[in-house]
């Protein structure tokens, strides 16, 4: 019989496979060069100008200071929402980026696993700049006394407040949480406008918002030894009861807030459906490029005081450099280049207020001095605390944040109608488990 038989079919299939995969071998050779590249993963900023400046600085540094050709630099834009999954896969495969921007507890998370280069020298150099840096940012990068990241921005979580509504109601911005409730009742007109866009969904922003209020009542999550969990305290009970009253009795928080995602409070404010929200200045930066009218009506204030005063939150973003890197000195050099005050200031200012500088002396510039919205920022940056207060942003604190233990606690109270003390007891137990596991490891 003429024609092909089984063996011929298999041979042909094999040949087709080889032909189809042929180009990959060529790619494989060209990709072999990649191991010698400087790889920087960029998480987008709010303004295209900031993105552009950062990109220029990467290539400038590579060409002028590292002697790398353009083809030896990989500048990858990675969407922030997806960065963690991508980073986890790349680390597992032994192919992480050389330099990346890391959020708060991620420095200690990856540092504790031995993935990050020691950047203590770079941080000490920054500290020697005139006026130094905001030491509040160091909690995020210090691991066993060594700096495993370089703080690049220390971001306060101010209350974004509608000045026009305060003016209409002839009231001042409230100084205490009790005043806040009274002012809220005066300026809101539900259902179109609620006073307080407090995030209460099962998301990270809820932990931030809830803890910030609890601190003002003297509460905290963990002691500074990063071991003793103190969620189940009278101070926290008082704070949680205040939130419960705002939600159930005074009705100044929209009911829908319990299902918000991290953007829920942003949307509420940007759509003029909330008069106050506690958030980093990402909302202000958004308004700067998308709604100047609302931006003019917006003031940025410290949180009102509770029985224990005002405690403001900060979060710290840092640059981290990974050890699996053929040229660690180049990675360190790139971070130093970014952090040279002149280079750094250009990027910081181009973000329209989203990033707040870690160098104190940069607050002397007209950008920060001339806008009244920013007048509280320097004090907030100086005295602010991380969400894990009184502990550091450790890997355990990161797990508490990412597994939404505190949002579940507040929903026990607001949705399941548990007593605050009972909900806090359950929450305390869960956080204890997390800290115990991490400390044991």
């Amino acid at each position, binding site marked *: *019989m*003429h*024609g*092909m*038989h*089984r063996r*011929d*079919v298999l041979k*042909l*299939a094999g040949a*087709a*496979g080889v032909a*189809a*995969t042929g*180009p*990959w071998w060529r*790619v*494989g050779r060209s*990709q*072999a060069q*990649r191991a010698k590249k400087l*790889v920087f*993963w960029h998480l*987008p*900023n*709010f303004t*295209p100008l900031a993105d552009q400046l950062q990109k220029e600085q990467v290539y400038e540094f590579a060409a002028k200071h590292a002697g790398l050709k353009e083809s030896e630099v*990989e500048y*990858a*834009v*990675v*969407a*922030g*929402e*997806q960065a963690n*999954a*991508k980073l*986890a*896969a*790349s680390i*597992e*495969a*032994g*192919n992480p980026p050389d330099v990346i921007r890391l959020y708060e507890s991620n420095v200690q998370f990856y540092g504790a696993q031995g993935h990050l280069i020691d950047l203590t020298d770079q941080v000490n150099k920054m500290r020697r700049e005139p006026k130094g840096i905001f030491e509040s940012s160091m909690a995020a990068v210090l691991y066993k006394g060594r700096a495993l990241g370089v703080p690049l921005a220390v971001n306060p979580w101010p209350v974004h407040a509608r000045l026009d509504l305060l003016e209409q109601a002839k009231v001042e911005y409230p100084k205490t949480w009790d005043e806040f409730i009274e002012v809220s009742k005066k300026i809101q007109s539900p*259902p*179109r406008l609620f006073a307080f866009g407090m995030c209460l969904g099962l998301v990270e*922003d809820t932990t931030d918002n809830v803890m910030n209020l609890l601190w003002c009542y003297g509460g905290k999550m963990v002691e500074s030894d990063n071991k003793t969990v103190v969620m189940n305290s009278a101070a926290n009970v008082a704070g949680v009861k205040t939130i419960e009253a705002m939600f159930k009795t005074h009705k100044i928080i929209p009911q829908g807030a319990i299902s918000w995602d*991290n*953007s829920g409070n*942003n*949307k509420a404010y*940007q*759509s*003029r459906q909330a008069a106050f929200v506690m*958030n980093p200045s*990402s*909302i202000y930066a*958004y308004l700067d490029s*998308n*709604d100047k009218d609302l931006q003019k009506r917006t003031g940025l204030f410290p949180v009102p005081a509770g029985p224990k005063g005002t405690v403001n939150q900060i979060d710290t973003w840092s640059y981290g450099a990974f050890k699996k890197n053929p040229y660690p000195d180049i990675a360190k050099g790139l971070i130093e280049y970014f952090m040279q005050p002149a280079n750094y200031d250009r990027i910081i200012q181009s973000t329209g207020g989203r990033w707040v500088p870690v160098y104190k002396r940069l607050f002397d510039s007209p950008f920060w001095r001339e806008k009244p919205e920013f007048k509280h920022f320097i004090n907030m940056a100086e005295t602010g605390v991380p969400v894990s207060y009184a502990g550091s942003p450790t890997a355990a604190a990161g797990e508490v944040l990412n597994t939404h233990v505190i949002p579940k606690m507040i929903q026990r109270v607001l949705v399941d109608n548990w007593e605050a003390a009972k909900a806090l007891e359950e929450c305390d137990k869960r956080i204890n488990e997390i800290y115990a596991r991490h400390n044991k490891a």
Partner: protein
Amino acid sequence: MPRTRSGSRRLLKWIGNVLLVLLLVWTLVPFYWMIVTSLKPDREIYGFEATLYPHQPTLVGYARVFTTTPFLKYVRNSAIIAGANTLASLLFGCLGAYALARLRFPGRALIARGLVVSYLVPPALLFIPLFAVLSVLRLIDTHQGLILTYFSFSVPFSTWLLMGYFHSVPLELEEAALVDGCGRLGTLFRIILPMSLPALAVVAFFAFTQSWNEFLYANVFVNSVEVRTITTGLTLFIVEDVFFWGPMMGAAFLSALPPLVVYLIFQRWVVKGLTLGAVKG
């Protein structure tokens, strides 16, 4: 009075039609919402009252898609990757399915079952091992790497689907061709494949849409703009906790068009292929 048979049939028909209309609404509303959101200004998108249609229609979102992102590059990359994967799925699917359906060799049943098992493994379990494999092969951040990865779900599916279809082609036709001097490949290309066009259309359609819509692998394995696909490009409209809904919906609408066009072209065969495969497999 007892209901007549034609009356019952009419009632059933009405119930069926109502269900179909409900399903149609269920399917089309998200698509409609995507389009109208893409045409609304930010103030309207974030407004207190959700508007059913844009009161102040604007193309600002679309302008932003084309001026602030390399959207056409994303389209090009998605087209290259989905197109290549479709062709490869057809080629390897046909050869593999024919071998499994017609040839006798050790391990045939095991391979056939393995196809199903490999198709059922969730991508979330595979992306880290696959990243390691692609890193070793130096295929991270390349079109080829992504195409190769997509084989992991499209080739098993194509092979399995075609295998069922090839079983339904009468063996006598093939034997007659062999007797007349046609070889195995000749039989495959001259007898089996022309009779399997509906199944090939289904394979092409599914391979294309699966590759076009895939997100996880594209997100993890690709870094540069030169290789980035539409699905991962869309995520760049989310910056921290701020969503730029207008341009994101505009880009999502534009990215939904190619699979829609492909489906409209192959619709007749796709429906036929699915039904034939179902009853004769």
